[in-house]
């Protein structure tokens, strides 16, 4: 009987313990002051001297950098290596999908214990971090080559993911290739399309594009209804590419061109370009961006990474087959595509609404509300 009582007491005690740990004193970040001073020390100098100063400060920080990124490992590893080689700064990389990068950064920021110095991820998450005030401003010479449309408050586009349909060349003969987004609604693709479950940014951009180019809301809704009517739903762009390569599905309504290119390079029978090599399908290029954490432990290294990724690092991205945010000679990634502007503001403001609408569209629940 004695155990019984004690067990009960112990339960009560643990609740108290949990509460204490959960709500106990949170110490605000102590490093924000030093980080700020490093950032301002660098930006106070003329642009030409900033990098040297940053390198000097980075040495004092111990020549290390913590990077949070959603770049895939096959990109992140060579990028980190190239940066390490250039500056002799050790990079430790936290890789996760973009949502997780945001989650982790938010958790750490809210607790005042930042773990990352620089972040590189999708624009939605970059915008969210910027909005929440997690990021410090960069004003170095790296910005010069970036198109103004790629410069955002507190962060800058470092590369683009380009939206295009992709198809299996064994299953779709040149005569059956889609030549416009509207083609995807054609009855000949009935049961042949695959759409991704979370591509609401594509849905938003294409809807706005159509509306801006003379279609009525009703026409747009009808197109979407037909496209989804032709489609199966799948999850994950890389998984979809795997199935596309294997011939499990003939066409993907939208995949990122770099994923398609990479599979094609391996020999898979897939492409996003028609037989004549030029796609007239409007290509939306979604920016991925880089930012520096406001209260970073290694602010100078973060600054260096930001600076480097927009300059020397761009070549590295091109070598990896990605689409850089600046003009780099030898960049073939946009060859044959017709770029159109990507609607950043709409998605930043109404992203959640479009998520819901897209979800409802896929599930067939009161489409296009």
């Amino acid at each position, binding site marked *: 009987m*004695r155990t019984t009582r004690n067990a009960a007491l112990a339960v009560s005690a643990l*609740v108290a313990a949990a509460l204490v740990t959960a709500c106990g004193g949170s110490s605000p970040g102590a490093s924000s002051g030093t980080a700020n001073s490093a950032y301002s020390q660098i930006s106070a100098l003329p642009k030409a001297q900033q990098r040297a100063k940053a390198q000097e400060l980075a040495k004092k920080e111990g020549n290390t950098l913590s990077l949070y990124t959603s770049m*895939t490992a096959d990109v992140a590893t060579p990028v980190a290596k190239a940066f390490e080689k250039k500056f002799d700064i050790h990079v430790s990389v936290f890789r996760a999908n973009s949502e997780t990068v945001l989650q982790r950064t938010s958790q750490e920021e809210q607790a005042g214990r930042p773990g990352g110095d620089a972040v590189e991820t999708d624009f939605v998450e970059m915008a*969210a971090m910027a909005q929440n005030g997690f990021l410090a401003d960069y004003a170095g010479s790296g910005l010069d080559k970036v198109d103004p449309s790629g410069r955002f408050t507190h962060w800058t586009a470092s590369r683009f993911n380009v939206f295009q349909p992709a198809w299996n060349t064994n299953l779709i003969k040149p005569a059956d290739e889609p030549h416009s987004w509207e083609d995807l609604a054609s009855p000949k693709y009935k049961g042949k399309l695959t759409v991704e479950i979370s591509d609401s940014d594509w849905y938003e951009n294409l809807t706005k594009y159509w509306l801006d180019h003379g279609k009525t809301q009703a026409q747009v809704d009808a197109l979407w209804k037909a496209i989804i009517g032709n489609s199966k739903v799948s999850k994950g762009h890389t998984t979809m590419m795997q199935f596309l390569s294997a011939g*499990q599905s003939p066409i993907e309504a939208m995949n990122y061109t770099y994923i398609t290119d990479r599979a094609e390079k391996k020999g898979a029978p897939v492409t996003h370009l028609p037989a004549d090599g030029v796609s007239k399908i409007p290509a939306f290029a979604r920016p991925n961006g880089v930012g520096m954490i406001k209260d970073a432990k290694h602010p100078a290294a973060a600054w260096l990474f930001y600076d480097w990724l927009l300059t020397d690092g761009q070549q590295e991205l091109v070598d990896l087959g990605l689409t850089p945010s600046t003009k780099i000679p030898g960049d073939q990634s946009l060859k044959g595509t017709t770029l159109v502007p990507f609607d950043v503001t709409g998605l930043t403001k109404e992203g959640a609404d479009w998520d819901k609408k897209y979800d409802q569209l896929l599930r067939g629940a009161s489409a296009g509300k």
Partner: protein
Amino acid sequence: MAIAPAPTAPRGGEPMPDDGPAGDGAATPGRAVRLLRRLLTFQTLLVGGSVVVVGYLALVPLGYLFHDTFLSGGGFSFDAFSRAYGGDSQSGSMMLNSLWFAFGSAALALLLGTALAYVQVRTDTPFKGLFFAASLVPLIIPGILYATSWIFLGDPTIGLLNTLVFKPLFGASPINIFSVWGMIWVQGLHLAPVAFLLMVAAFRAMDPSLEESAAMSGAGRGTILWRITLPLVRPAMISGALLMFVQSLESFEVPGLLGLQNGTYVFTSRIYFVLRAYPIDYGAAGAYAIGLLAIAAAGVLLSAWLQRSSRNFQTVTGKAFRPRPVELGRARPLAGAAVIGYFLLTVVLPIAVLIYASLLKYYAVPSRKAIKTMSLNNYREVLHTPLAFTALKNSLVLGVGAATVVMLLTAIVSWVVLRTKAPGRRLLDMLAFTPIVIPGLVLGLALSFVYLRSSLPIYGTLLILLISYCTRYLPYGMRYSSAAMAQISPELEESAAVSGASWFQTFRRVVLPLMSSGFLAGWVYILVVSFRELSSTILLYSPGKEVLSVLIWEQFENGQFTTLAALGVCMVVILVLLVSVAYRLGARFGLQGDSTN
């Protein structure tokens, strides 16, 4: 014990409004001292400590979940529920889909697992060696890979079963993996090892004379099975069914890969939707999790109700017995064929697809062209993956650590639940079950929330992953332990106590050895599944502290299914080796235990 309870020194935090039992803060000082003295025996420290740790592990994410769900809007409200279930969410039909899918998978897994366990433990079936692999391999292969293998096997157009078997032989492609039945099939096969491990332990621990006496009463084999054997292992079956049911409800790998293509949306696709949107509606996510929690709690109550009469089902009595296998006689070749068939389906086919894929540059239906491109490059790539060895080492440390800690904790806690009349023991049982419904990401958020604010060096180390794994697998450990404990007759403990053994001696030398087959089964299960845990790991791991599941995820994100397949094959090999060593060691302990009888 590797995990110390959380620091108890108050640091001026305000108590949060909480759902748990009220703290006993009002104890007077005199009473407290007396209590303290009483508490300071080894038994109470150990038992109390375990209860505290288990309660703590379960309450942290639960508290976080409840807080977000009911209080995220500033005050207490049910808004999150209307956001989650109202409007166009179609949550009703998704719930029904989920229940049907979970029920079907659990039923299939229970049927397969129990049948195999019976054949393995109680008959002289041939090919017993295959069971070992059949019980492990589906557990080891990450869900994503297992489901993908089945897509390549059962797709209506490119599935190998259709193109290589059915089309040439029957001129039709009858198999369509993208159906509810396909989902149940894949999930059921993937879960069957859970039932198998639980049931093997249960059958092992059962006194065979209970069956023999039925045979002597004139009952045939079928009657014995139906009227004696199965009712006797019912507690373990109910445990297993509950576990697998809730796990299927909560999983999204199979519904995500197979269900979406077919338009079968399940409940977890809601959670997935909510968790990947920005800003995350934590309230809605929590409301979904609480919905699952309600179902799981109903399941726990139902299973307690179903087991109400089995309080006295202890089949492990003090009498020594040598389990004698049932001679199958003429049915032996049939059983052998069934074993081989099962082995083919669950192990050979998916592994063959993985091996085949691992030799290719990209997955393609077998053809002369595809075969020409075969090489070992993917294996080379796996070996050269930076961090591969760090990740393996970390995964091993975490797997072994989590398995050991969870099984020891749950052994003690299931003792408290089943053997004492402690008030709140039911609650404790249910509490230990709750982590199963908490989405991995929410668990990760809860843990990072707590440990980012703790001065202990836990965040950013392997320890936080250990805590996360211990929390996630607590429900499994609890089911394995309590199924084993329920079978042990309390007289055995009483007799040890009467012979002068202290509680600890009794526990260590009588209870633990008697529940050893259940203990080992749970241990193996946790070890293996912790190798694939990703959803909380991905948020909590730190650079340099990578684990294998993170590497797998990376390969998956890279789109390197073929490399991933190679990694999967390596994992299967490593874990099969590891577990066979564990069984060897276990068998050695088991043998010692037997000889002292």
